């Protein structure tokens, strides 16, 4: 790929796409907070917001960048892990290497696969019906995505699966956030430390945010 032939360049790509996804996570979460408004208000505002997003050209561009990011990030993940997979001869017969690192840093692929599955289902559940499906309209004539979301979040199975995915996201970010900065060359010991701290806080906030909404809805409605 153009200038992305070496493993290090591939990691730049992973880091940039990963960080872009992080940014998106924030924006998406802010949008989702509208679900917490009082019920009537929430419905109208959330649907209006969704309609606005789907109409805006700038948002459209960002959305495409987002799709491409997910795809590139995933392709790179697969490419890199495929490249560095252990051969039969290089697999340890007795292995205790795990004591030297965090489990989630070694299981980024597993966490990523969960995320990928989640994203696919998420798109299928919300994005696809919203874009192409037949949804009822709300009072203002916007597609009523709100009802769809609320309905899903009242299903215990759905909330459970959603929580698992967010937890996977939490651990993916716990390692991924600071790792991305390191991949991009942040070598200063002091700033590296700060980024590590920010990474932990960020992962926690994202996790609490995304988990809080469905749980709140599940309990309160």
């Amino acid at each position, binding site marked *: 790929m153009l200038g992305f032939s*070496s*493993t290090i360049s591939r990691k730049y790509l992973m880091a940039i796409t990963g960080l872009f996804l992080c940014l998106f996570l924030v924006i998406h979460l802010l949008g989702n907070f509208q679900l917490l408004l009082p019920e009537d208000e929430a419905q109208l505002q959330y649907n209006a917001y969704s309609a606005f997003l789907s109409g805006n050209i700038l948002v459209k561009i960002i959305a495409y960048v987002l799709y491409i990011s997910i795809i590139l990030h995933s392709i790179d993940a697969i490419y890199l892990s495929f490249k560095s997979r252990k051969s039969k001869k290089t697999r340890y017969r007795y292995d205790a290497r795990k004591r*030297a690192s965090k489990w989630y840093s070694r299981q980024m692929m597993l966490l990523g696969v969960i995320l990928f599955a989640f994203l696919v289902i998420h798109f299928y559940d919300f994005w696809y019906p919203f874009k192409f499906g037949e949804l009822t309209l709300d009072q203002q004539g916007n597609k009523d995505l709100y009802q769809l979301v609320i309905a899903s979040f009242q299903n215990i199975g759905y909330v459970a699966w959603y929580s698992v995915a967010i937890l996977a996201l939490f651990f993916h970010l716990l390692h991924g956030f600071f790792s991305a900065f*390191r*991949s*991009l060359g*942040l070598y200063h*010991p002091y700033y590296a430390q700060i980024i590590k701290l920010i990474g932990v806080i960020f992962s926690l906030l994202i996790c609490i945010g995304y988990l809080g909404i469905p749980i709140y809805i599940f309990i309160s409605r």
Partner: protein
Amino acid sequence: MPMKLQLKIWRQKNSDDLGKFNTYELKDLNPAMSFLEMLDTLNLQLIKNKEEPVEFDHDCREGICGQCGVMINGIAHGKPKNITTCQLHLREFKDGDTIVIEPFRAKAFPVLKDLKVDRSAFDTLIASGGYIGVETGQAPEANTTPIPQEIAEQAFDAAACIGCGACVATCKNESAALFVGAKISHLAALPQGKAEREKRVLNMVNRMDELKFGHCTNTGACQVECPQDISVLHIAKLNYEYLRAKLKK
């Protein structure tokens, strides 16, 4: 207090052989003995029984040459952190323990025999750019270019790598990022190394990929097992230098 140990050691005739574990018993060991001396003792016992001794790499036996290195109970250079295999002593084990001993494994480090592996890929890496291209007789007076003490110390921290390969052996991706990062960081820190800065990092990274070393996931395991405690921040420095060189190009 004499110790008894059971050893499960990887035996492999040559690089084509499939290899397997053999189990051996050792009695009357002194806890003050070093791990390699224990292997010496085992070999003596084996030879006397007309069995072929276990081949392993070692030379200085004081933690500086980087020639020793095996997986001990699944950990590169054994359980204590930041030491070499030759610095490990039996007092770290308990009487009656079973110790599993395997060679370092990586695609770039084929096993030669038993616990000996071929790490010449590291030499190939250095040859691809890990130097400053000054020839004998060209050097200017050393003190014409002062180097701030902290820069010299930083360069030393990176230069201390002994090339043992534990970082590769312990990495889930078999990455040589710590080894290469240390060299890049050492030479990039010094004013003398600036002229070849971009060329060096581009060549070394290319060679690293060609030699089938994996990428870096930043798990940090390498530093934990590195006898010289080389900081993973040198990997960040490697990434920085590579990006810088790419952008300049």
